[in-house]
């Protein structure tokens, strides 16, 4: 592991890293040129590009960890889809609390993303691809647009790209502030000019996505990986990482109570304690209390549970949480857990799209109850009631997994730090109208938490 050289972040610290000239000087667009030239001789076909990506074992970096090559094969073949075009959407709506890896790729190495999109477009027969970037990344959108303009001017995009006969357009589409638009069907709705309401699946986007056409949605980091896989081959990519189900280099976003928060690149599956060492350890030498390993939607793990966990899809899943977007939020011994959970509950109450009742009603209720508890006005039965309410929101009660994400912090933190929540309600001066506790429901709900998040 010590000989690992950064791949995705290799160019980030360079001067003028966003410019086409420096990107090309570093070997950029070699794969795009190679594939286009090879398409004329038959050396490269869309199926071959897909096969290389499949063989690499690349799994989506947006959160779900779905195998990218397999996702591509779900697009119906030409004979079945008729005249319908295929669309590629790059998901740059990075909004999961704790996640900031795509932002640095966008702001420091945009051509890397564009080349990944070009190669994916070739594999999928895409003529127009879109980058859906969150509205808050104002400069990120400007940087991408400047990079796209350069690529058009250099003939890397547009009509008959580099004389290959292939046409490809690329457009940046800015969101306007809505976490849910990171969910791929909500993103599609938003791109169509609507409120970002997730769609019922099936049909899956690969069959019927944006404008009812077959659509593939891939995360920024995923598409960057595609470029490097085409540069150096599937075997090279597979050679990095803990095992063949968890391959490639990975960007980890470390925030919270560490000495040097930031984005760190490491082989997929780096143990948590090694990553923590890379970040200079705990802030002020304080003790580790808990970690949210995959963005605020991931169940919390205690210090003992996380310390030796290999940070990859299967490693974190085995610890009953999820790698998600690899947003590692580190909390030290001074953290007030009920307050932290209340903060996360506020986020979900604010961001629920409002489509499904359990989520629309449940998320504000969780927040209100938690607020009452940390304000010292909670009742004894409130802790149990939180679990009860949360237990009725997830596991297929709603169209998308937002509700499952919203309940994960509650369902994981309460059993693990129960005494902290109870300390608040015991201190509370509220006379309370205690309801009988819902016996038995707690443990069942807690067991289901992690499972629900991975489906």
């Amino acid at each position, binding site marked *: 592991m010590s000989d690992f050289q950064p791949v995705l972040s290799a160019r980030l610290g360079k001067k003028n890293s966003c410019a086409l000239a420096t990107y090309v000087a570093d070997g950029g667009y070699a794969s795009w040129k190679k594939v286009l030239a090879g398409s004329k001789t038959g050396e490269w076909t869309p199926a071959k590009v897909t096969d290389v990506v499949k063989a690499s074992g690349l799994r989506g970096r947006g959160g779900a960890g779905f195998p990218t090559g397999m996702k591509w094969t779900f697009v119906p073949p030409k004979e079945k889809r008729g005249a319908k075009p295929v669309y590629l959407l790059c998901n740059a709506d990075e909004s999961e609390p704790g*996640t900031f890896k795509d932002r640095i790729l966008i702001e420091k190495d945009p051509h890397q993303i564009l080349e990944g999109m070009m190669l994916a477009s070739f594999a999928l027969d895409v003529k127009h691809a879109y980058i859906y970037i969150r509205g808050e990344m104002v400069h990120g959108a400007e940087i991408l647009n400047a990079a796209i303009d350069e690529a058009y001017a250099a003939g890397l995009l547009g009509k008959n790209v580099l004389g290959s006969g292939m046409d490809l357009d690329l457009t940046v589409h800015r969101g306007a502030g809505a976490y849910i638009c990171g969910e791929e069907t909500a993103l599609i709705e938003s791109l169509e000019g609507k409120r970002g309401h997730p769609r019922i699946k099936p049909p899956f986007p690969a069959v019927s996505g944006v404008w009812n056409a077959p659509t593939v949605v891939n995360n920024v980091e995923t598409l960057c990986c595609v470029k490097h896989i085409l540069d150096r081959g599937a075997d090279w990519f597979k050679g990095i990482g803990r095992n063949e189900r968890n391959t490639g280099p990975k960007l980890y976003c470390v925030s919270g109570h560490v000495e040097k928060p930031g984005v760190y690149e490491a082989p997929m599956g780096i143990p948590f304690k090694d990553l923590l060492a890379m970040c200079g350890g705990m802030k002020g030498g304080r003790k580790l209390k808990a970690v949210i390993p995959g963005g*605020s939607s991931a169940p919390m793990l205690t210090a003992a549970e996380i310390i030796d966990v290999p940070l990859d899809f299967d490693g974190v899943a085995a610890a009953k949480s999820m790698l998600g977007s690899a947003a590692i939020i580190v909390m030290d011994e001074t953290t007030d857990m009920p307050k932290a959970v209340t903060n996360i509950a506020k986020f979900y109450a604010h961001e629920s799209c409002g489509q499904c009742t359990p989520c629309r009603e449940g998320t504000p209720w969780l927040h209100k109850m938690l607020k009452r508890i940390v304000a010292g006005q909670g009742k004894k039965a409130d802790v149990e009631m939180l679990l009860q309410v949360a237990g009725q929101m997830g596991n297929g009660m709603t169209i998308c997994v937002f509700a499952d994400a919203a309940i994960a912090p509650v369902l994981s933190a309460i059993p693990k730090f129960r005494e902290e929540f109870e300390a608040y309600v015991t201190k509370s001066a509220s006379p309370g109208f205690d309801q009988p506790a819902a016996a038995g429901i707690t443990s069942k709900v807690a067991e289901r938490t992690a499972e629900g998040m991975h489906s």
Partner: protein
Amino acid sequence: MSGGANTPVETLPGQPPVGEHGALSCGKELSFSPGAEARFARLLTRYPTKQAALLPTLWIAQEEWGWISREAVDYVATRLGLSSAFVWGVVTFYTMYNRAPVGRHLIQVCTSISCHLNGAEEVFHACRKKLGDLKPGQTSADGKFTVVEVECLAQCDKAPAVMVNGDDHARITLENLDAFLSELK
């Protein structure tokens, strides 16, 4: 809900009156400047449907007029062949379309988890207090500042993160808040 769809439009000091469909009125008829018109025309070439241009068209409108008034909703709706009600529904879903005039500096303080762990709520509170005891979303009497609380800005390594208009600011703490605010002219 996203975009504060549950939040009634509050009439804060200095705000124009509420017009039809809950949107505030700017009191005049609007149309795009030549520059905006050119951008709008280019937009329409990038999508297979006119409706898909709605979010970017609203961005142009906001850059033109600073906020999305009732008249702006009607204008955008007409240009894209959509109903005003539909456009207003979209405007209210997203948080970044201003539904009232905002100050010259729109100070957006992130209070999501990583910023929370680094004291963001205290910063948000102190910021409002220093600028004249502003309520969340309220604009200062001189029209210079509006302070709002926002969700994760994807700058968690630079917590507490603050965005002013489109510019990112890192590690705004109680200690450097005065210096930070004094730089906003």
